[in-house]
């Protein structure tokens, strides 16, 4: 019984064995904290793990193939104006994505790549951190009335 009480007290004052969450609270450079034992190193994921998607706005041609094959309809095509030319670009909603890698395989310009990062938790479902490419959308999107007709 006393042993148990002792254990509980020890647990209360010992250092935490979990990391801060969501991950954005963890500083980018964590090596200095590792030595002090403040955070735990990230889990090593296996080769071929499918995690967060990354999107290269410059090389995308707006062909829309990725949004056609995406099983979760997580890719949205919007009209954009770049260098005063009308074209299309995509945004990827990570909250809907199933990480199947179809879009990466289909993209003719390799504009979408898959990374091994799996720490995606955030408070806002449609916040910038969970919509890949949203910063470009804010900049380049045009409301295309021709589409509506």
């Amino acid at each position, binding site marked *: 019984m006393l042993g148990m009480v002792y254990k509980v007290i020890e647990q209360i004052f010992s250092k935490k064995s979990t990391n801060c969450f969501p991950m954005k609270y963890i500083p980018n450079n964590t090596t200095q904290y590792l030595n002090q034992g403040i955070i735990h190193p990230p889990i090593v994921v*296996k*080769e*071929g*793990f*499918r995690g967060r998607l990354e999107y290269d706005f410059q090389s995308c041609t707006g062909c829309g*193939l990725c949004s*056609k*094959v*995406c*099983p*979760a309809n997580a890719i949205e095509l919007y009209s954009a104006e770049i260098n005063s030319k009308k074209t299309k670009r995509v945004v990827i909603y990570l909250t809907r994505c*199933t*990480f*199947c*890698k*179809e879009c990466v*395989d*289909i993209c003719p310009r390799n504009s979408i790549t898959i990374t091994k990062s799996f720490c995606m938790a955030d408070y806002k479902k449609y916040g910038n951190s969970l919509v890949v490419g949203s910063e470009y959308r804010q900049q380049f999107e045009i409301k295309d009335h021709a589409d509506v007709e």
Partner: protein
Amino acid sequence: MKSDIVYPLNIGPVHPAFKEPIKFTFRIEGEQVAGVDIDFGYTHRGIEKIALERNYIQIIYLLERVCGICSFSHPLAYCLAIEDVAEIQVPDRARYIRTIIGELERLHSHLLWTGIAAHEIGFDTLFMYTWNIREKVLDCLEEFTGNRINYGMLTIGGVRRDITPENSETITRMLEYYMELYDRASEILLDDLTLRARTEGIGILSREQAEMFCAVGPTARGSGLLKDVRIDYPVNAYYDIPWLNPISPRDIGKEPIGDVYDRMAVRVLEIKQSLNVIQFCMENLPEGDINSGEGAVKIINKLKKLEGEGIGRYEAPRGEVCHYVILDNQEHPIQLKVKAPTYSNGFTWIPMLTNIEIADIPIVIASIDPCVACADRMTFIRKDGAKERYSWDYLHQKSIQKYKRSANQ
């Protein structure tokens, strides 16, 4: 103990003992179950309907989510059905890789089931033990496919990722690990006195009853039916495996009577069989392509020009899955029918549950490895919220009417 007092016992639809919503209404006499009524339909997700609005590639990923455990069997049956219509030849290497993933899935499903069965009879040490050793196959699957479940490996006409030399090393290590453990684990599962006491002679499904209810998978094999889609209608690499036979409790020298113990024995023996099949496939893995090399859009465009109907059958860990598709020159099928194993096995609960004691209900229910969400295919809800039941005759009439209408058009 029998008694004159008869009272109803409702379990479900939402109950801590079940992982999925389903309702059982038992008629209890003393401690014994005198009758049972089963009510499906609380977790209908409309997958068949959703599939009609997606293209052929998107459906693969939708069907992976029919069942969390059989997340390879369902899309495989669908791909087989599509390949049947389009007459696509799957390359040899892809056939073998499909077999390996299918068997890895069977391995992890059966280990999961043994854990659940042990948990249902209160043998939690065994539950922890089997789930602990199950991690190895999940790790292997993760390395090989990228995910622990919902592998995303299939495409129409092949598979999406190849087995690299590192992967085959992992698989070989995993096989060694399980081969070493198998004797000890099977001894615990098949000879342990506590387990035998709780499973022998309980939940009996006789051979005739199994035939009558069209039981499939380990449930049928536990009752002595030699029925296995892998052998009866071979696909993938199963053609090439001459020694593959349906498992029966006779393999351990026991005449099957169809009790829970027999079903457990079948699953334990199938673990060994799966290991052997994986080993065979790894040793005889042919070289070559893993798919037709066409992109997803090309496949969709090709299927868009086809019409016809196809059927795909595959032995999932729980029994036969069967997918039926109709193509009609569109980007999506105009009909998709999914038949999950629990749809057949669900009815065998009635003879199994009759005349057992209340304490045995959980293990008997778990013994067919139910997956309720997979089996929920149709629900009718009237405007006032009450559920409506359509009889067989009514549905038959309806289908005749529909057929006549479309034939007249």
